[in-house]
């Protein structure tokens, strides 16, 4: 127990706004989830394709929970395919991408699996592997490091 010792890791809330600069996602709400090992993006219409022998994936995301008319189309290189067991105990094969994520003023690279479940409330889960070197999670707080940017209008122009 590290009581009375202030951790050198930043405190992160259980919900944070984040962005994926290389995927073109400016604003997506992430659940900070110590119950999950890998991070996940909930996408739809996930399609595999090839560019010069590099396995790629194209997918769509509704980054805003309450706005299903707003779609961001993303492309990324596939670095792996992995068997992932979800919280319901179901095992499925998922594409894994590696991409930078920005939370507040920090940008770092994460691995995320793509899952075709657009019905979940959170479209992004940030799991333990992405958290372990930089953050400790405070379950009583939300949006500690981040604020929502009003950038959707900018995209629609």
């Amino acid at each position, binding site marked *: *127990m590290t009581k009375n010792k*202030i951790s050198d890791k930043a405190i992160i809330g259980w919900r944070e706004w984040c962005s994926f600069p290389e995927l073109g996602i400016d604003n997506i709400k992430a659940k900070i989830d110590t119950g999950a090992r890998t991070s996940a993006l909930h996408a739809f219409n996930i399609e595999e394709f090839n560019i010069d022998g590099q396995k790629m994936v194209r997918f769509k995301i509704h980054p805003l929970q309450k706005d299903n008319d707003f779609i961001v189309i993303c492309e990324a290189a596939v670095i792996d395919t992995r068997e992932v067991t979800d919280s319901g105990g179901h095992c499925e094969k998922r594409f894994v991408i590696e991409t930078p994520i920005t939370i507040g003023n920090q940008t770092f690279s994460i691995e995320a699996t793509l899952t075709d479940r657009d019905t979940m409330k959170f479209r992004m889960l940030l799991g333990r592997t992405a958290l372990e070197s930089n953050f*400790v*999670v405070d*379950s009583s707080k939300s949006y500690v490091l981040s604020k929502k940017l009003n950038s959707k209008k900018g995209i629609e122009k």
Partner: protein
Amino acid sequence: MLLKQFIFIVFVSLGLSGQVTATDLITVGWLEEVQVDNSEYWLKAKLDTGADNSSINAEEVTEFLKDGKSWVKFSIQNAWNKKHIIIKPVLKTSRIKMKNGGVQKRLVIELKVRLGSISKQVKMNLVDRSHFKYQLLIGRSFLRPDFLVDSSKTFTLTGR
């Protein structure tokens, strides 16, 4: 002069309260051993900031009526194969939306859980977690506002 004093007092009290908050928080790993039901019974628990409520793998679940109220008796089994029987009043029956679109019925009880030096009564869903590695999942309603979860660490309290 008065204003200066006032500013000084505000500054000092802000500084102090900030310190108190920081030292009151306990950093734990994402796996810890906890004691449940006011007993010496230990369970390995996953501390899950992705879940609001806590849930426990309940076996041999029997609902019954006592004085017109709904009660439940169930058993839990820990990592050392020790069995423990729990009998509690049913707080409520909730319907949980599953990721596959189905709906599952869950009994909710109140259970005492001790993590490190802190013990709390917490609402607990009785579920089938037999296909999971950890029998007990501790959610945010237990963790807040006392604990910070460090996902690079496990068993920081017991060192097992």
